[in-house]
């Protein structure tokens, strides 16, 4: 009988990731120390302004407040916001990875869809109303879905490995973005749209990206765990041939997976347009590595058949906490790529080790069953 104190991760594999996040948070809170930050207050005009305090001589000076370098509302919100772009894309790419595919073009889809939305909204300028913003959002997501669909059509239609197709589209989509923009950065969006994405939900904490990330995680989780189509995604990743023979329309499910991957890149691009206020063909360069790393750290197996939306989000959070932790503790920036790479390799090795353990357990169980059958029937049985 298992002890009530033993953590059982078999029924909740993401539990281990949550433990890692909590432990990382505790370590960063302890080793990050304290910082002194300008104290702000709401002025008579309703805007935030510097708080002043009088010193011993009666002179007014700007006031400061001491906070823990990691564990404070602004830093936690910032980590959540910075994670959200990658986490949203990681949910989409997890679905692709579960089918034993890969999508190297997510960064380029992010850029091209952002450019598409930017070009649309730029025509109306900052005074364009909410409907211009809605149009911009729709254009962004539509471009992303088209890119994802093209990826899927080529992969299933030509029967070429997704690595090759998405390696090519990674260059094509970014090239299209460059030709469309002529290398310029495009801004000048409806102010309503910018204000909506950047609005302070609690005080001046900008939480819209975090809320969108949570919504995408919930929808992705329902898709994978509660819908028949989600079970088909896992089945294909587990054994594509068996799935085909059992009547699953493998090509259609794979196509859907790449469309979703594109779609999540589009959602991330919408948030980026609102938060950063501009788009260019250079956006998202190298993001595919971080997004794939987040998915793999979150438990998705590059061999297929394994992964979850929640795991993708938690994996992205862990990577962002490591990146922020490097800054907080004061390790030189140049080490951040090394650390990310080591974390990704470690996650993949742990995944392979886990598979090896599962295979050996299955083998042991099979041998045990074979022995029982032989004893019961007194007939040799070979089990392949």
């Amino acid at each position: 009988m298992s002890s009530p104190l033993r953590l059982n991760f078999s029924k909740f594999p993401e539990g281990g990731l949550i433990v890692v996040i909590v432990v990382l948070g505790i370590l960063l809170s302890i080793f990050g120390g304290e910082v002194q930050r300008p104290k702000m207050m709401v002025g008579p005009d309703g805007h935030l302004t510097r708080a002043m305090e009088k010193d011993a001589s009666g002179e007014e000076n700007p006031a400061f407040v001491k906070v823990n370098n990691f564990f404070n509302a602004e830093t936690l919100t910032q980590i959540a916001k910075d994670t959200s772009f990658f986490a949203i894309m990681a949910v989409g790419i997890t679905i692709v990875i579960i089918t034993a595919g890969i999508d190297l073009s997510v960064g380029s889809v992010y850029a091209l869809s952002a450019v598409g939305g930017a070009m649309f909204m730029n025509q109306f300028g900052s005074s364009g109303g909410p409907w211009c913003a809605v149009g911009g959002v729709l254009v962004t997501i539509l471009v992303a879905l088209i890119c994802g669909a093209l990826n899927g059509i080529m992969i299933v239609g030509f029967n070429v490995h997704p690595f090759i197709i998405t390696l090519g589209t990674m260059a094509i989509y970014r090239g299209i973005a460059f030709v469309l923009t002529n290398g310029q950065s495009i801004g000048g969006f409806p102010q309503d749209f910018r204000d909506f994405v950047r609005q302070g939900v609690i005080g001046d904490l900008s939480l819209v990206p975090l809320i969108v990330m949570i919504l995408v995680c919930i929808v992705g989780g329902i898709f994978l765990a509660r819908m028949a189509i989600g079970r088909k995604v896992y089945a294909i990743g587990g054994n594509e041939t068996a799935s085909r023979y059992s009547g699953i329309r493998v090509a259609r499910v794979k196509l859907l997976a790449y469309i979703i991957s594109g779609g999540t890149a589009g959602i991330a691009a919408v948030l980026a347009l609102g938060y950063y206020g501009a788009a260019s063909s250079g956006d998202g360069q190298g993001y595919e590595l971080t997004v794939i790393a987040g998915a793999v750290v979150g438990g998705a197996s590059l061999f297929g058949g394994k992964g979850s939306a929640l795991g993708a989000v938690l994996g992205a959070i862990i990577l962002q906490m490591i990146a922020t932790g490097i800054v907080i503790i004061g390790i030189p920036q140049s080490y951040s790529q090394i650390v990310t790479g080591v974390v990704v390799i470690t996650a993949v090795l742990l995944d392979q080790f886990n598979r090896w353990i599962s295979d050996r357990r299955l083998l042991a169980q099979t041998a045990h069953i074979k022995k029982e059958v032989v004893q019961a029937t007194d007939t040799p049985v070979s089990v392949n």
Partner: protein
Amino acid sequence: MIKKVTLTVTSLVGLLAATSFAAEKTYVFGIVAKSNNNPVFQAAKTGAEDEAKKLSQEHGVNIKIDWRTPNEEDPQKQVQAIEQLVNAGASGIAVSCSDANKLTDAINTAVDKGVPVVCFDSDAPKSKRLADFGTDDIDCGHKVMEQLAKEMGGKGVVAILAGNQNAPNLQKRVQGVKEVAKNYPDIKILDTFYHKETPQDAAAEVEQVMQAHPEVTGWAMVGGWPLFTDNALKFAPGTVKVVAVDALPAELGYLRDGHVQVLLAQQVYEWGTKSVDMLYDKAADHKNPPSSFVKGDLIPITKDNVDEFAKNWEKWLPKK
């Protein structure tokens, strides 16, 4: 007796501690350059650190430089760095903008939260930054083309090497090159060639263009990226005229061997020193710079003065 000595010593120690506490005010200035891959920003870092040491000694304070430059150019990462610096309580921030559009809001938020911001090299002119120290980029482009036209005798085919297509400072330099080129009817601009701002990518771009367009007789390089590699220019010295911006040590060999005719040196070390000066004046004395644009002059380096100029780099680059 022992009690008196102990009391005296304790008082002295306490006084020293109190004195050092009172005098040792700390300022943390964050520097967010475009990328760690570009050596010009390493000179800026050295300048910032040297100026921080100098001001610390002069004023009895502790000035720290927090270098938050992304490894590769990424304006989103620059925004994150600015936000992190504000959250970490930085006393001031200096930034060279990869994309002014994206960085304007982050700079404005930092300023609204009481953190002064200055720009260097590449400005965000619509932001609330205090000032920009750097090259007048249009003027820089003018000078590149004027020098190149002189070297080419006013005729030929020119290719422009322009780095990151999104960088506003580089776009202005290209504009400046094209404006002056119009004054020379016998000079034709072939095209503007962009590339990732690493020496290898830049050198590969030059080689590809020369193979595809052997008619090119002049290169207007608005940054010196390919010259940080050996053997980047595969043509015989002098057969193709080259004028480039920046004159770091790795580039000077090309002047000496005649592959490059003129290097226009930006004040890359002063990007760091001036930024720290302006931030310290604001943070400590609440003084604004005299102007919102502080111009850094370009120094033409040729074969004649290259050795004299080269001595400066012993001071300007990070000590190993």
